[in-house]
C-alpha cells in the first residue's frame, strides 16, 4: 500500500538523505532544490522558523549564533563527554544545564536538545518524501554508526519520534552499505566495509551467503571523521592569521565560519588536484591567502586517518580473519574520496578497495533496501536478511568496581543474558544494578548506561531471594531489562533510562513543540487532522443513516444533510484545512437533530434492557461533536 511506504534515512553528521525502493532498485529522493544531499545544518531565522539543509547554510556564516551543524556528535552524550568537542566546534550550550540532564543547544535565544535538532532534519527528509509520493509518510528505517552506544541509538530513535516517524529499525551504516552493495553484486564471500564519514568511523566485516548478510565483527570510533580534518586545517589558518597578520579571529565566529567553508573546499579540491589556494576575506578588506599542496595536506592528516588502523585490526582479529581472507573492501563515506585514505585502506587490506558506489549515497540506498525487506520484500530483496551484531560488550558492575561482561561485543543481535542476584542483609527490599557498555575491565572506564534499583523484593533473610534479571539487546541494538524475584514469582519490568536519555513525556512534549517552528508543518498537521475528523463524522453519518432515527427526519432535512455531506467530501480532497473545518462544523450543526433522535432511541433501547454497547452510542454523530469542537491552536 502506498500509504504504508517505509523510507530509508541516512542521518549523517554532514549530510542527510532519504531513499526508497522503486520497484527493484533503491533511489534517493531529491529535495525541493533538486539536490539529493540535505546538509545536516539547522538554523532558526528571525521569524523563529526552522530552516534546514542548503537553505540553512548561509546562516552558518551570516548569523552563526542562530545555526548549528554536526549535531550528530552530541547525540546521546552528556556535558562531561563533550569537552573536547566544545573546544573544536562552535556549539553554544544552554547556560542552565544540570548535571545528568540532556544537553541543550542555543539557536538564537531558544534552546533545543540534540534529538530535537536531528528531528528538524528528519522532518525535512520526511517532507521531501511526502512531496515526492504525494501521501503522508510515517514509517522509516534510520541508519546509525555501527559503533553508536545504547544512549546514542536511543537518542536517534527519539529524534525519529519527535519528527513524527515510527522508527521500525535502526540499521548500522556500514551494514546498510553492504546491503546496497550486495543487491548490486549478488556474490557470496567476505566483505569489509570501511566507512569514514563526516564525524564517525566504522569498520564492519560481513559474510555474504545466499542473501544472508551476517556481520562477523565491527569496530569504530564515533568521533573520527572529516570534521577532524577540517579542524586541523582551521587551526593552521587561525595560527597563520595570528602569526602573519597579527589578528586573533578565534572569537570571531563569522570569520571562523568563513575559514571553515574555505578549508572544506580546499580539502575537496585536494582529492583531485596537486595543490590549491585558501582565500578568505576577513574584516576590513584584509584577506588570508595560502597555498596548500597535497603533500602538505597528506602529512597533516596522517595522524587522523591513522586512527582508523586500530579499529580495522581489532575487527579482523575479532573476526578471526587475515587480510588475504577478505574478498572485497567497500568504501563508504565522503572522506574515503581522499586518495591518502584509499592508499591506507589498500595497504591494510592488501587489495584495491571497491569504489564503484557513490560513497555519499550508498548508506541511504541500503537503508531503503532494509525498509523494503521490513515491508515484506520484493523480488529483488526476497532472500535478503541482515544479521547484525552489538558493537560493544554489555556488562554489569560487580564488587570492587569491576565490569562483569554478560554479552560480548560482536554477538549477533537480538542477544540476551540472564543474571541472578540476591540480598546481603535481612529484609533488604532493593538491589542496585549498574549497567555498563564497553570493553574496559573497570566500571569507571566503561560507559554507564543506567543505574537502577530492583525494588519490592519480598522480605526474606539475607541471601534468600533469587532475583532473575534478563538483559536483552534488540535488533536495533537497544537494551531492555526485565527482572523477577523467583521465590515469590513476583515479576517487575524495569525500564532502563539511559544516563542522558529523554523520558517518554519529554519526547511527547517535543513532538508537539516541533510543529511550532515550521508554518508548513503546522499547516500540514491541520490538514491531516481535519481530514481525520471529516472521516470520523462522515462514518458516523453513514451509521446514522442506517438507524431508525434517520426515518424520523423530514425529506427536507435529509436533502440538507446530503448537500452538506457532499460539500465536506469535496473540500476534504483539497489542502485547505480551514474550509474542511468549516464544512465539518456545518455538517455537525446540520446533523444535530439526527444525533438527538439517535440519542433518544439509544436511551429507550437501553431502558428495554439492552446494554449501552449494543445501542452503539459511541459512534453516533453525537459523539463526533466534541472532537470537531476541540481547540487546535
Amino acid at each position: 500500500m502506498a500509504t504504508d511506504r517505509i523510507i530509508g534515512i541516512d542521518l549523517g553528521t554532514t549530510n542527510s538523505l532519504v531513499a526508497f525502493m522503486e520497484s527493484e532498485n533503491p533511489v534517493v529522493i531529491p529535495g525541493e532544490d533538486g539536490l539529493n544531499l540535505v546538509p545536516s545544518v539547522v538554523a532558526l531565522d528571525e521569524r523563529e522558523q526552522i530552516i534546514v539543509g542548503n537553505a540553512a547554510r548561509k546562516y552558518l556564516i551570516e548569523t552563526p549564533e542562530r545555526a548549528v551543524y554536526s549535531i550528530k556528535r552530541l547525540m546521546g552524550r552528556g556535558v562531561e563527554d563533550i569537552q573536547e568537542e566544545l573546544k573544536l566546534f562552535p556549539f553554544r550550550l544552554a547556560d542552565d544545564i544540570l548535571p545528568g540532564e540532556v544537553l541543550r543547544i542555543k539557536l538564537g535565544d531558544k534552546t533545543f536538545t540534540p534529538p530535537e535538532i536531528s528531528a528538524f532534519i528528519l522532518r525535512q527528509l520526511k517532507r521531501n518524501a511526502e512531496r515526492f509520493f504525494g501521501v503522508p509518510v510515517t514509517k522509516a528505517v534510520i541508519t546509525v554508526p555501527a559503533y553508536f552506544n545504547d544512549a546514542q541509538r536511543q537518542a536517534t530513535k527519539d529524534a525519529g519520534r519527535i519528527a513524527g516517524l515510527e522508527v521500525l529499525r535502526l540499521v548500522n551504516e556500514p551494514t546498510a552499505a553492504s546491503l546496497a552493495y550486495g543487491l548490486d553484486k549478488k556474490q557470496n564471500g567476505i566483505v569489509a566495509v570501511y566507512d569514514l564519514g563526516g564525524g564517525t568511523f566504522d569498520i564492519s566485516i560481513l559474510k555474504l551467503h545466499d542473501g544472508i548478510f551476517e556481520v562477523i565483527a565491527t569496530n569504530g570510533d564515533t568521533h573520527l571523521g572529516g570534521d577532524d580534518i577540517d579542524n586541523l586545517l582551521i587551526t593552521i589558518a587561525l595560527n597563520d592569521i595570528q602569526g602573519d597578520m597579527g589578528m586573533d579571529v578565534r572569537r570571531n565566529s563569522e570569520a571562523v565560519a568563513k575559514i571553515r567553508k574555505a578549508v572544506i573546499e580546499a580539502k575537496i579540491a585536494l582529492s583531485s588536484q596537486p595543490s590549491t589556494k585558501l582565500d578568505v576575506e576577513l574584516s576590513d578588506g584584509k584577506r588570508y591567502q595560502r597555498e596548500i599542496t597535497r603533500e602538505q595536506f597528506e602529512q597533516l592528516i596522517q595522524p587522523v586517518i591513522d586512527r582508523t588502523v586500530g579499529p580495522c585490526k581489532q575487527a579482523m582479529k575479532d573476526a578471526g580473519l587475515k587480510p588475504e581472507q577478505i574478498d572485497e573492501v567497500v568504501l563508504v563515506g565522503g572522506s574515503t574520496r581522499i586518495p591518502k585514505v584509499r592508499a591506507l585502506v589498500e595497504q591494510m587490506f592488501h587489495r584495491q578497495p571497491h569504489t564503484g558506489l557513490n560513497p555519499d549515497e550508498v548508506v541511504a540506498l541500503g537503508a531503503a533496501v532494509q525498509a523494503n525487506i521490513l515491508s515484506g520484500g520484493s523480488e529483488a530483496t526476497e532472500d535478503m536478511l541482515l544479521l547484525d551484531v552489538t558493537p560493544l560488550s554489555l556488562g554489569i558492575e560487580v564488587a570492587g568496581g569491576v565490569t562483569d561482561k554478560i554479552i560480548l561485543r560482536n554477538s549477533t543481535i537480538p542477544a540476551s543474558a540472564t543474571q541472578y542476584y540476591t540480598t546481603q542483609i535481612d529484609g533488604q527490599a532493593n538491589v542496585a544494578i549498574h549497567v555498563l557498555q564497553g570493553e574496559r575491565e573497570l566500571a569507571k572506564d566503561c560507559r554507564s548506561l543506567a543505574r537502577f534499583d530492583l525494588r519490592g523484593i519480598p522480605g526474606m533473610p539475607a541471601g534468600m531471594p533469587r532475583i532473575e534479571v534478563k538483559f536483552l539487546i534488540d535488533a536495533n541494538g537497544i537494551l531492555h531489562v526485565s527482572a523477577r524475584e523467583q521465590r515469590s514469582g513476583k515479576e517487575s519490568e524495569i525500564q532502563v533510562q539511559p544516563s542522558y536519555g529523554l523520558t517518554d513525556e519529554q519526547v511527547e512534549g517535543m513532538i508537539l513543540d516541533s510543529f511550532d517552528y515550521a508554518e508548513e508543518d503546522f499547516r500540514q498537521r491541520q490538514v491531516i487532522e481535519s481530514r481525520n475528523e471529516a472521516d470520523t463524522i462522515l462514518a458516523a453519518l453513514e451509521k446514522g443513516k442506517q438507524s431508525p432515527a434517520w426515518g424520523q427526519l423530514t425529506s427536507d432535512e435529509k436533502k440538507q444533510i446530503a448537500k452538506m455531506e457532499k460539500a465536506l467530501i469535496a473540500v476534504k480532497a483539497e489542502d485547505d484545512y480551514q474550509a474542511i473545518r468549516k464544512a465539518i462544523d456545518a455538517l455537525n450543526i446540520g446533523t444535530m437533530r439526527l444525533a438527538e433522535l439517535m440519542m433518544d432511541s439509544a436511551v429507550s433501547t437501553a431502558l428495554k434492557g439492552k446494554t449501552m454497547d449494543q445501542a452503539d452510542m459511541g459512534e453516533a454523530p453525537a459523539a463526533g461533536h466534541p472532537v470537531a469542537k476541540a481547540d487546535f491552536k
Partner: protein
Amino acid sequence: MRAAHFCSACGKVQPPLPVDYFTFFGLPRKLHVNVVVLEKEFYELSRGLHPDLNVLQDKREQDWSLEQTSMLNDAYRTLKDPIKRTQYLLRLEGIELEEQSKSATEKARATGEVKKQVVPPDLLEELFEMNMHLEELRTLKKQGEDDPALLEEIGKQKLELDEKLDAQLEQLKGYWHEWDKAVDSSGEEARKKLLGKMVDVLNRRNYIRNLVRDINEAMEQ
C-alpha cells in the same frame, strides 16, 4: 526433534519454549556437532524467526519473534564454539565451572580477598616462572627499557603455551567421542567420570589461556 518454533497450521512464529540449546536446534545432547550443518540450520531458522521479517505482525508476535531470535542467536553462539559448547553441556549436567575469569582476579585484587585458587600442581612451576618474566618485562617497560633476550624467552614460552592449548583441545575432543558414545549406552557412573575429566581439562586450559592473555597484554603495553 527440533523445538516447535512455528505454528504448524499458519507458519507464524510461536512463543519460545523453555528448552536447552541442543533441543532448540533439534540436536541430541552430544558434543560432536557438525558446524556446517548447524550454520545452515541457523540461517534457515533466522529466515523465519528474525524480527526484521515480523515487523508487520501484531505486537505479541513481534515479542515472540524477538525472544525466539535472541534464543536462537544465544544457542548458535554457544554451540558453534567447541569450548563454549563443552562448558554449556557441563552446566546442563549440573556442574558449575570454577570461576577463573579475569574479573574474579580483579575483584580479588580490589577487595583484598584471596581468590580461591587450586592451580594444578604440574602447572605451578611454569606459571610462577612466566609471571616472574612478565613482572620483569613490565618493570623494564615502565622505565622505558628493553631486553631482547627476555622478550625472546617470553616469546618462546608463549609458543609452547599455544601448543599446549591445541593439545588440550585435542584431548577434549577425545572425551567428546567417549561422551557421545556414553550418552547412548554407558551408565551414570561412567558419564560422571567423563564429566570430571572434561572439567579438569577446561580448568587447566583456563590457566594457560589467562596466561597467554597476560603475555599478550604485557607485550603490547
